[in-house]
Each structure stands twice: as structure tokens, then as C-alpha cells.
């Protein structure tokens, strides 16, 4: 346990620029931008109500709608921060077991009584839990700040919705809902994290090419073989279930990306309260995806690839 704590700290020392300062910088920039726009008196629209320099009056039912929307959907205000998650996890994993081989510092780490499985596990934990938690936290703070700023702007113009907002249980539940997505993200991202750690543990150089171009080319060759020679290689199946999973699974929200049913469910929400329903359905589908065999197959494959990466780190003989 103590060793794991130090291994995680080690990762933090090495990567705090990428994993901490980069999301914070993006969040801070967004907040700053919102502030500048507000102070410069530009019109902005939040949930269909535009705040401009004249006094705004909001009808009671309209206010209800705005508050409900803001309470349930405010994390959306930080979409750029969440978008970073996929990229950070991707590049972190790709370098995780390669950088130490490139600069030969692996020989130093291996001179200490730390097992290869502990080391690889610490890196997988950073990718699967550490980075998502960091992003969720920065995203929540950013979006909350932006929504509160918007609320303040409305209040200045005579439409104070803060009371209603803070009374709304949705408002307080939303962070917990977002947090509940972390384990779901972890399970969905496992095949990609496993694949990237595997490439990182084994490729001598050009990890990006191995990680991305190799599967894409394999897929292309399979498609070609199928088209030209009519070989039954199931290229479509392999694209959807292997190649896409190991590459795209680092992005958040794969329970939507990879499920036609989930996409349909989101489209069939009540048009009357569309945005709210879509948000609710997004979380619903996330939790429902825990029952998806398709996801669990990815989990198994991901774990297997991480085990392979441990084995390769144990016996690779570079340096």
C-alpha cells in the first residue's frame, strides 16, 4: 500500500504539467473568457434566455424551466474540459511505459524493490481513476463557476434565480451523478488503456504509429481482403468491436458512442422537455451500460493486455 502511494506520487511528479496544470489552465481560461464577455456587456444566451443590458423579466414557469435546466445540465458548460480527458489518457498511456525505456531510467526504477505489476498498476490507476477524477473536478468547478456567473448576470438585470437554483435538489445531485460516471468511464476505457500500455511497454519507438496506424492498417487490409477475395474475415465486426474499441474508448461517453440502442433512446426523449430528458437519459444509459456484455468483454480484454504489459516490462531487456 505504501509503495503504491509513492508510485502514484511518482507519476504525479512526472506528469503534473500535463495532468493537472493543463486542465486547470483550460478551466481558468474558460472562466476568464466568460467574465470578460460579461463585463464587456456582450449578449449571451443561457438556455434560451438572453441577458442583455436591459432589464429582464422572467415569467415564473419560464424561470422554473431555466433553473431545472441549469441545475441538471450545468456540467455541459465545461465540455472542452471533458474533451481533454480522452487526449490526456491517450498520451499519458502511450508514454507511460515507453519514456522510462527511452531514457533508460527503467534501470533505476528496477533497482528498487518495486514489482513490475505494482508499477504498471500504478500507471493504469492514474489513467483510469486519477485523470478522470481530476478532469471531473476541474470540469465541475469550471461549469459551476460559469453558471453562477451567468446567474449573477441575470440577477444584476433584475432576474434573481439563485434562490430557486439552490433549492433545486437536482443542483446538488448533479456532481454526484457526474462522479458516478468515473467508474463507468474506467470500465469502458479499459480496452484502450490496456492496448496503449501494451504498445508503450513493447514498441521500441514510434509508439503513436504502432498504437494508431497499426490497427487502422490491419482493418484496412482486412476490408480489402474481404472486398477483393471475398474472404470471410468479418472486417466490419473487427472494426466495430476491436479497432474502434482500442482506439476510441479513451473518450468519455462511450456508452453512447458504442450503443445504437442508447443513441436511439436519447433521440426518443420527450420533445417537450428535450434538453432535460437528454441529460437524464445520458446518465441512465451510462448506468445501464453496466449490464452490457459488450462492455465487459472490453474489460476482460483490457485487463489481459495490462497483464501482458506487466510481463513485457518484467522481461524486456533494453537498456
Amino acid at each position, binding site marked *: 500500500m505504501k509503495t503504491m502511494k509513492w508510485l502514484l506520487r511518482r507519476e504525479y511528479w512526472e506528469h503534473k504539467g500535463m495532468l493537472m496544470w493543463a486542465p486547470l489552465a483550460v478551466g481558468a481560461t474558460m472562466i476568464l473568457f466568460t467574465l470578460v464577455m460579461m463585463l464587456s456587456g456582450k449578449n449571451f444566451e443561457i438556455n434560451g434566455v438572453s441577458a442583455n443590458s436591459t432589464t429582464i423579466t422572467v415569467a415564473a414557469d419560464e424561470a422554473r424551466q431555466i433553473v431545472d435546466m441549469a441545475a441538471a445540465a450545468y456540467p455541459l458548460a465545461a465540455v472542452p474540459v471533458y474533451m481533454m480527458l480522452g487526449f490526456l489518457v491517450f498520451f499519458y498511456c502511450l508514454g507511460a511505459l515507453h519514456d522510462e525505456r527511452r531514457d533508460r531510467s527503467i*534501470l533505476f526504477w528496477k*533497482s*528498487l524493490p*518495486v514489482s513490475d505489476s505494482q508499477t504498471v498498476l500504478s500507471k493504469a490507476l492514474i489513467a483510469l481513476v486519477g485523470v478522470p477524477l481530476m478532469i471531473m473536478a476541474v470540469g465541475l468547478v469550471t461549469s459551476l463557476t460559469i453558471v453562477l456567473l451567468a446567474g449573477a448576470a441575470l440577477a444584476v438585470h433584475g432576474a434573481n434565480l439563485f434562490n430557486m437554483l439552490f433549492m433545486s435538489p437536482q443542483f446538488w445531485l448533479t456532481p454526484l451523478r457526474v462522479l458516478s460516471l468515473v467508474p463507468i468511464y474506467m470500465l469502458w476505457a479499459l480496452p484502450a488503456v490496456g492496448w496503449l500500455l501494451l504498445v508503450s511497454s513493447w514498441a521500441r519507438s514510434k509508439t503513436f504509429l504502432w498504437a494508431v496506424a497499426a490497427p487502422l492498417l490491419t482493418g484496412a487490409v482486412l476490408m480489402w481482403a474481404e472486398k477483393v477475395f471475398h474472404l470471410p474475415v468479418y472486417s466490419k465486426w473487427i472494426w466495430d468491436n476491436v479497432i474502434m474499441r482500442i482506439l476510441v474508448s479513451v473518450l468519455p461517453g462511450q456508452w453512447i458512442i458504442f450503443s445504437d440502442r442508447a443513441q436511439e433512446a436519447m433521440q426518443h426523449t420527450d420533445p417537450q422537455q428535450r434538453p432535460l430528458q437528454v441529460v437524464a437519459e445520458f446518465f441512465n444509459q451510462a448506468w445501464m451500460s453496466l449490464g452490457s456484455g459488450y462492455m465487459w468483454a472490453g474489460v476482460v480484454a483490457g485487463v489481459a493486455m495490462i497483464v501482458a504489459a506487466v510481463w513485457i516490462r518484467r522481461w524486456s531487456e533494453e537498456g
Partner: protein
Amino acid sequence: MSALITAKNLSKRYGKKTLALDSASFEVQPGRIVGLIGPNGSGKTTTLKAILGLTQFDGDLSVLGMDPRKHRDELMKEVCFIADVAILPKWLKVKDAIDFVEGVHPRFNRARAEKYLAATKLKPETRVKAMSKGMIVQLHLALVMAIDAKLLVLDEPTLGLDILYRKQFYQNLLEDYFDENKTIIITTHQIEEVEHILTDLMFIRDGRITLAASMDEIGDRYTEVMVQPEYMTAASALSPLSQRTVFGKAVMLFDGVSRHQLERFGELRTPSVADLFVASMKGTYE
């Protein structure tokens, strides 16, 4: 006393042709400083990697009673190594390095590391990126010397360092680290600099141990003679290991010929390890 390391018939093949280790067998006793000396590509590093559990191989190897292939994690609590200079990661700070090793190593003594570092220019906030090669080795040595390990393995530890750092490195090792409970194995090409600190010598050539003896035994066994011209034929008849010419005089190196017998040919002396090495590695690159 039982051996610290026992190796029997170690073999290691890279690909189909290259035989890095060819049934190498040797023993290392505790409390010794062993120099493992060999030409490039003779299997030195492979031998060390085998001892450290960093490579697969055939044969029997016991280090501190453990098989490094199976019990590496356990073994590394008792074994330290400095693989080469400059392998600390660039982003590492001095204070982080100390914290980390203290955190993961049960036998690390923080005070010792700090005491040693206090005698250098290194500051807690210094990053490896900003250090010279010599400073990186100082940091690495500070970490290693603060670990109470039974075996220390040094693979070319002073490669690329200037003479001041090299001298200081070995001096620290001898004065502040080594004692009868510790064992050190060193490989290096700078034989002259280590020969006075070694207690034992192992020569390796083409994956085989060609010589394994204590320095005392070597002094007894090998003799160098500056042969007077009139005794050339008589001396050659005793089949010297090597012969070279210094200031117009033949210097012959004998293995296992008694000093008494050689005395009459000319002036005797104990050969340096470097001369012995050159003599016994003749024809390596041919």
C-alpha cells in the same frame, strides 16, 4: 562460509548465433569486492543482468539463496545496482528522489543520504535535468550508499566521468560504504582505477569465466620478468603467457612458474591487472 552467489553453467543466447554466456560458472563470497573484467561483448553485462533478474537464461543461479528469475522482487530488497551513469530520469528532483526511495525501500537510511549529499553541490530542489553527469552519479551513489544492501552491483559506474569524480566515487565507496557484510561486483574498462580496491578478479571472455581468483592468488601465480638478453631462450622455453618489449628489454609474463625459478632471468614484479588482462585476452578481436 557459504557463497553469496553461486552460478553453474549459465548460458544465454541472443538470436540464433550470438552466445552471450556459454556455460559460465563462478562463485562470489561475501565481503569481497569482485572485478568482473572482459572485453566488449564478452558477456559482462549479461552476467550482471542475470544476477539482477533482468534477463532469462539457462543454468542454475543462486543469489543470496534466491533464484533471481523467480524472486526478483524479494531479492531487490538486499541488492542494489548502478547500471550506468545518467539513468536517473530528467524530471526527478533531489528531494523527490530521496522521498521516493525512502518510501519504497525498507533498508533506506535518509540521514545517510542527506549527509552524503551535504558534501556535494546538490540542492533539494535541483532537477536531474540541470545536473552534470558527475552530479547525477553523486546523487545515485548517495541513494545507493544509504541503502543497507548485502550486494552492490556496479556496471561501468564511472563511464564518462572526469578523473576527480571517478576517484571520489571509489573513495566514497571504500571509506563510507564497504564493510565485511557487504559485497560489491564491479565491471569497468578502467582497470587501473579499480585494481587497488579489488579483492577478487574474474576475467570473462566469449561468455566463459577464464580466470577467477583472489588478488593474493594472482600475485602468487603470475609473475612478470624483465628478462636479460642472455636468458631469452631459457625464459622462452618456460612458455610465457605474453611477451612485450619495454625500453629494448623483453618483459615476459608467466603463469604458475615459481619466482625462485624466474629470479635468475632478471628483475621480477607482480603484473598489473591491465597487463594480465591484455595478455590473457590476446586474439579476442581477431
